[in-house]
């Protein structure tokens, strides 16, 4: 494998890892702060993709800012949806054992998949990226790379930065970090922990939906697309350490590299490698790479 191809593969790995990070970051926050295992997280990703498909004609009709406005609408809708879902369903999960959370959110996956089937049908769809992002750039004569994928990576990095800033530099972020360490103390200080939970959950949902929306033009929109992303996000969250966004970023990139290079060098066991990685890390560091608190 010559240098040029190697570099392109690295680019592939980073791009894949960053998208995974976007989904996993929401999951790790929900997991770390709320203490809830949410198996339905992959379904939010799917909802994002279908939302992108549904809003696409509208976005295309409004040239120029149409794409970003569609993204904005998606984010607003997902925050609202996350807020309502937390109030109506997730809040009942806090006192329950992990097993019950797993099963109730598993039921939620089935419900969301079927609702999608009823509302949006079962066909496979494509979403066109906005015209100004639809080109390709040549990569040293090896092949060309879709500009949209570079854009996606850029957006993921921006979101990562934004998350970092919010969590470390804002009051809400401070409350979130405090709530992760010591729930009761935060309540004793007069901060409404329930409101905090609602915000964090809605934020997590928004991240997953946003990931689905920007991934839609690069992948296709099809039934069951949430499943693959879900299990990988869990792997990322566990490797990185539950509740740690920094951990999620490191782990996603790690998974991206293992998966990409695994596929090239050892296709037969590529699928298995990610889990071997997870098992190895858990046996070395039983609580993930970056434990919170």
């Amino acid at each position, binding site marked *: 494998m010559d240098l040029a191809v190697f570099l392109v593969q690295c680019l592939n790995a980073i791009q894949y890892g960053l998208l995974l990070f976007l989904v996993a970051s929401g999951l790790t926050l929900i997991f770390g702060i709320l203490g809830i295992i949410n198996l339905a997280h992959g379904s939010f990703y799917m909802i994002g993709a279908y939302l992108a498909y549904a809003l696409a004609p509208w976005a295309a009709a409004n040239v120029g800012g149409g794409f970003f406005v569609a993204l904005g609408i998606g984010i607003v809708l997902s925050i609202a949806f996350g807020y309502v879902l937390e109030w109506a369903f997730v809040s009942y999960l806090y006192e329950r054992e992990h097993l*019950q959370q*797993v099963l109730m959110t598993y*039921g939620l*996956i*089935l419900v969301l998949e079927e609702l999608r089937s009823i509302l949006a049908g079962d066909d496979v769809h494509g979403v066109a990226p906005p015209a100004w992002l639809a080109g390709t750039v040549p990569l040293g004569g090896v092949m060309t790379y879709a500009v949209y994928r570079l854009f996606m990576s850029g957006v993921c990095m921006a979101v990562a930065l934004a998350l970092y800033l919010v969590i470390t530099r804002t009051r809400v972020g401070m409350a979130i970090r405090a709530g992760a360490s010591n729930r009761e103390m935060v309540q004793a200080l007069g901060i409404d922990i329930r409101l905090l939970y609602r915000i964090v959950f809605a934020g997590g949902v928004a991240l997953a939906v946003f990931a689905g929306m920007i991934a839609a033009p690069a992948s296709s929109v099809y039934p069951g697309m949430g499943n693959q992303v879900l299990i990988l996000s869990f792997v990322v969250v566990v490797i990185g350490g539950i509740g740690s966004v920094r951990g999620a970023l490191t782990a996603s990139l790690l998974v991206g590299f293992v998966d990409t290079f695994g596929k090239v060098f050892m296709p037969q066991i590529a699928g*298995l490698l990610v889990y071997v990685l997870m098992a190895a890390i*858990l046996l070395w560091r039983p609580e993930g790479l970056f434990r919170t608190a």
Partner: protein
Amino acid sequence: MKLPRIAIPPAIGRLLKFWPLAAALVVLALFPHIGGGFYVDLVLTTMILAIFALSLELLVGGTGLVSFGHAAFFGIAAYATVLLSAKTDAPSLAWLLPPVLAIAAIAACVIGALCLRTRGIYFIMVTLAFAQMTYFVFHDTSLAGGSDGLYLYAKPRLAIGDVTLLDLGRPMTLYYATLGCLVVVYALLALIGRARFGQALAGIKSNEQRMRASGFSTYPYKLAAFTLAGALAGVAGFLHAVKDGFVNPEILAWHQSGAVLLTLILGGIGTLRGPVLGAFVFVLLKEVFQSEAVFGAFARHWQLPLGLAIIACVALMPNGVVALPARFRRLRMPIPHAG
């Protein structure tokens, strides 16, 4: 109306406690003679699921270890059954079953040795990871037919010389063999629950730190429970492979591990009746939701009512169906008045 009190000797009283179990056993034993072919198959599938669920109960209810990867041992045993069977003649049960169970047990021992180094949520995730690894071994490599699965050419039989004692290729024989396995597994787990081993596991479940503080080494007990649970799941896997004559990597998928956990919680964790009841309830729910006769054209969206039912059951009946009679009794009890 209060029934007149009859003096019952204590011994018979203890035995009478088992009447629901005995009745269920009788119904299951007689069922093939009164049911049609399809329903017998359905009950057979349910009994296999019940054995699988019972094996997990040892871990979840007996030791407090929630494993999200139990399907791995079910699948390994099923695949071992097919891989170890000759392609031509009917394999001998005596030479097939012990190695299959041994393989499942060894796999459980190895995987358990590694997984049990973690705790709590991490334990759940690492069992999932190992199950996924096993899934990918069967799905991606050419070890066993990949994603298309493998066929069992001839079903095993037990023969001494020329005399065939048990031919699992015959549906009735397989049904009764499965019923027999279910009874044996149930009895075995009941005995373990009463023995020192089971008490130790219960202690680990309620407070592991206290057990360790009193000088008890918990790791070997947990590992033993994990291995035994894996072997028992292997029994279910073996029966599944014989029943279908076909194995496929999907039997190792995390969905299967989730489904068996669901069966446990539906029935009721902490009892042995729970998993068995849960298996019947789960299969029944799926059948009802998928039936066109009840739902008409909407039956194609059967996953929606199933998902809602799962949520409702876990939310409203966290202790499972088994706990329902107790709840009704509490509802009917007279509310004590003060004074």
